[in-house]
Each structure stands twice: as C-alpha cells, then as structure tokens.
C-alpha cells in the first residue's frame, strides 16, 4: 500500500500518452490562450505547448470590440490575428524551448491551404503534431465553417493527412454543432485525435444602443456542461483519442473531462482567471484522494 501511494503522488501519476506522445500532465493550453510572453514555468504545468492558430498569410484580425463578458464566461471575436506561417515559424523557438512536445494549430480558407500548411510543417522537426482549426470560414463553400458538414471535415482532414504523409499526427478541433458526426468523419478520413469543443457561436446585443455589440464565440465555465456531453458522446463514437476543451477552470473539471472520455484536456479562458498550475495541483489532489493515475480515468466512469 505504501509503495502504491508513493507512486501515486509522484509526477508519473499525472502523465498520459496522446497518440504515442508522452505528456507529463494532461493539460494543454487551448490555441490562442497562452502567448509567448507568459511561458515562464509552463513546463511545470502543461504536457504540451500549443500556440495561437496560424494561417498561411498574416491576418490583421477583426476590428474592436473583440471581447464581451457573459455569465460565467466570455465571448471573443479576434479574427485569427497572426503573423502568417513564415513569421510564425521564425518565432516558434519561444514555445519549442519550453521543452515540451509542441503542437501547432493551423487554419486555412480552403482545403488546399490546410494541405499546403501541413506540407510545410511535415518536415518541421520542432513540431510533434498538428491541430486543424476547422471553425474557420470555408471560402469554397459559401463561408460556412469547415465544421458545417461531415464531408467538409473529411475533405480537410484527408488533404492534411495526405500532405503530412504520416510525418505527424493530426488532431481535429471541432465545434459543438454536429460534433459526433464530424468526429466520425474525421476519424474515417484519418484523424489521429479530435479536440472537442471549440467556442460556441454567441451574440451580444446592446439594448441601450439597439445594435449588435459582438458576434463571436462563447467560452469559459458557461460552456462546460455542453463540452462535457460532447466529449462523452464523441468518445463513445470514435476509437481515436479525444482531447477535451471547454470551460475548464479547476482540477475537478479536468477530472470530469477525463472521466467523460478525454485523454488530455485543454485549458483556455479558465486560465485567464485562475492559474493553470493551481488547477493541476487540484487535479493531483483528486487523483491522490481517488487512488488513481490520470491514465486510469478514461473508463472509470460508472453508469
């Protein structure tokens, strides 16, 4: 008993494996929520690094306002402001030198753009995996997102997998609408994991001015129950790992997502208001109390 207990309080209790990539902890920053300015100490908290989504060319992003507060959450409409892939790769060492596996989130306007970015990244030795951000507008299909249908998800995944030619795993980040069908389509097209879910489309109305204040994506604890259900259902519909995302703000939240079926968990807006290190400590405490390792949680959910 003593030996087992010692094992469980050590760092190995937190370790998980995602697509054969060992992660020291199951926490991953959600794309666009951990910048290069705040990487001090990241190696003690996270299992991998995941910088802000990059597009083939620079994007200025949306005009302000970009933010609004919602009950237990926030709504953002940033517009993928980023310096473009070339400059992104020049600056990537800031994340690479953290010393954790490095995942890169990509977005394109067309299937061809996803494929061309993956082709560039295939030989990038600093990068361990690619996450496809399929919540961006699909210019070839009238501007709806790539998540609009299983077929557009499948097209983007197949093209990306083809371009990578097995060089790196592909994770596919999905919105909540149609998530189970889209996850199955992603798996069938060769995805190695799915990230569930992205922000939920939301609207803020300014009643005083009688106008739309912001049209964007809702994140934070407000969406956690929705995200949990998506993880639960998707993990029962596919045989690839599920990365949980949506409203994680505590160690208990991390445990809940893993019990629901997630192999790893992304922390986004919750990290703006609480320290992810505190969430990890709470999660470790949960494991200690339950006498479990992080890797034991998937499948530990009773009916």
């Amino acid at each position, binding site marked *: 008993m003593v030996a087992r207990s010692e094992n469980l309080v050590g760092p190995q209790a937190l370790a998980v494996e995602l697509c054969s990539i060992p992660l020291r902890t199951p926490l991953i920053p959600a794309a*666009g*929520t*951990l*910048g*290069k*300015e*705040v990487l001090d100490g990241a190696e003690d908290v996270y299992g991998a690094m995941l910088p*802000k989504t990059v597009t083939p060319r620079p994007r*200025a*992003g*949306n*005009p*302000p*306002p*970009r*933010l*609004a*507060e*919602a*009950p*237990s*959450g*926030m709504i*953002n409409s*940033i517009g993928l*402001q980023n310096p473009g892939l070339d400059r992104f790769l020049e600056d990537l060492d800031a994340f690479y030198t953290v010393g954790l596996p490095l995942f890169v989130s990509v977005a394109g306007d067309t299937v061809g753009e996803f494929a061309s970015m993956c082709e560039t990244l295939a030989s990038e030795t600093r990068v361990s995996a690619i996450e496809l951000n399929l919540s961006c507008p699909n210019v070839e299909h009238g501007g709806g997102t790539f998540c609009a249908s299983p077929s557009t998800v499948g097209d983007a995944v197949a093209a990306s997998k083809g371009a990578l030619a097995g060089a790196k795993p592909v994770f596919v980040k999905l919105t909540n609408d149609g998530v189970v069908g889209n996850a199955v389509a992603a798996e069938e097209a060769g995805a190695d994991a799915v990230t569930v879910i992205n922000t939920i489309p939301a609207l803020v109305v300014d009643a005083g001015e009688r106008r739309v204040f912001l049209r964007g994506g809702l994140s*934070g*604890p*407000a969406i956690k129950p929705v995200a949990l259900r998506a993880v639960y259902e998707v993990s029962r519909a596919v045989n690839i790992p599920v990365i949980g995302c949506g409203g994680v*703000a505590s160690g208990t939240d991390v445990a809940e997502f893993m019990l629901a079926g997630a192999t790893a968990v992304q922390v986004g*807006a*919750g*990290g*703006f*208001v*609480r*320290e992810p290190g505190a969430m990890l400590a709470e999660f470790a405490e949960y494991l200690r109390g339950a006498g479990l390792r992080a890797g034991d949680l998937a499948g530990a959910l009773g009916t």
Partner: protein
Amino acid sequence: MKLHPVEVLGREEHGRHVLLRYRWTGEAPRPGQFVMARPQNHAGLDPFLPRPLFAHDHEGETVSLLFEVRGRGTALLAGEDAGLLVSAPLGRGFGTEGSGPVALIGGGVWVSPLKLLSRRLKGSGVGHDVYLEVPEGAPEAYAEFLRTRYESAALIETGGASDPPRAVLDRVGELSGYATLYVSGTAETLQAAKHAAEGVVSAQLALRERMACANGSCYGCAVPVWEAGEKTYRRACVEGPVFRAEALAW
C-alpha cells in the same frame, strides 16, 4: 493570471466613484500601468473576468484604485468586506523621460492614472499643469474629491458645453507651450487630444480597453495603430495601455 490577495486599507465613496486603497509590497506601479482586480470573497466565476483598473496612486506600501461603479463587476469590487485580489502592475505606462513643462489632461470622469503621474513628475522636478473635467451630471462629492486630491488642478466644468473635449482643450490653451500632453479620459477626449496635438506637440494617451487575459495571449484588447503606413492592431495590455497619439489609427 496570478492574482494576489491583498489587505484592503480603505474604501471611500465619492459620488459614484470608489477609492480603494490596499497594501502592496510587490513591484511598484509606474504611471499609466494597470492591475487586474476582482473581489476575493465573491465565490464562483460570475462575473468571470477581473477588471483592468489604472493604478491611481502609490505611496509607501499603499496602492490605490479609483473607479466609477458602473455595473455588477465594479459594484462587487466596491462592496464592503469584499476582499480584493489584484495582479502585479501590468502594461506599458506613460513615458516620462523628457523635461517639462507638461500638461496632464483628464476627460470625463476617467482621470485615475493622472494622480500617480503627477506624483512622479513632482518627484523628479518636472513642471506640470493638471486639467480635469467635471462633466455634466458629476456629483458634487466627486468634484470636491478632485479639488482635494489634485490640489493645484484646474477643474473644468463642462455642463452645458456643446463639445466637452473641446472645452477642456480650450482651457489648456496654447498646446505648443508644453513639451508633452498626457491624456486620460473618454474616447471623445482622447480623439480630440490626438487631433489637436497633431504637428503641434507630442501626446501620450491612456486607453481604457476591455481585457481578458491581460498578458498578451488572447489579442482581445486590440487597438488600431499605423505601422509602416499600414493599419494593424496592437494589444493594449502589453503594448499599451498608453500609446503615442500619432501611432493610433483613429
């Protein structure tokens, strides 16, 4: 975001404004910097985001915040016994390298960062004049607070003025007589000051923006700026909240 529990030393109401003083032994705030603040005893995550508030003053181990209670977040912060969680001072504040005389201009009721700036300028012997608006509808208690808090400031009552920012700038007078304008205030005040200063005097504007991460990660507090002739966006939380007027693409 690391938020520190701090001891609240005082909480004063001045009209709709609250002056919150707390003990702080960490890095000293520079004029124009801000902190993220949330009530400590308010359980749960609603309101979700801490509020960005300019450092109003700093002396010894006491930092103060001055804000108008406008919604639920600020009302909770202002509440008795709410406790307080604050970040370390954040962002890029006013540049104070030059010599005087300089003008400090506060528009609307957003004069908060000018107190600390005035204190620092005084400490380094830079001559400065302070001009503060008392806008229409401001409670007398707020005006009285300004009179005692900013002893030598010129208070400009703009009730009835058709163009309040213009009325404030008219009172400042010949802008070229100053080496720099330091401006905090409403969007209209900042815009008016930027255009009035163009080609006449350098100006630094303290912007109030909605913020989420406050550390450069989320790009939520975007401010339009000119760079190499092109309009782009900079983050108020790490590249501001004080910007040179000529850089702003307004």
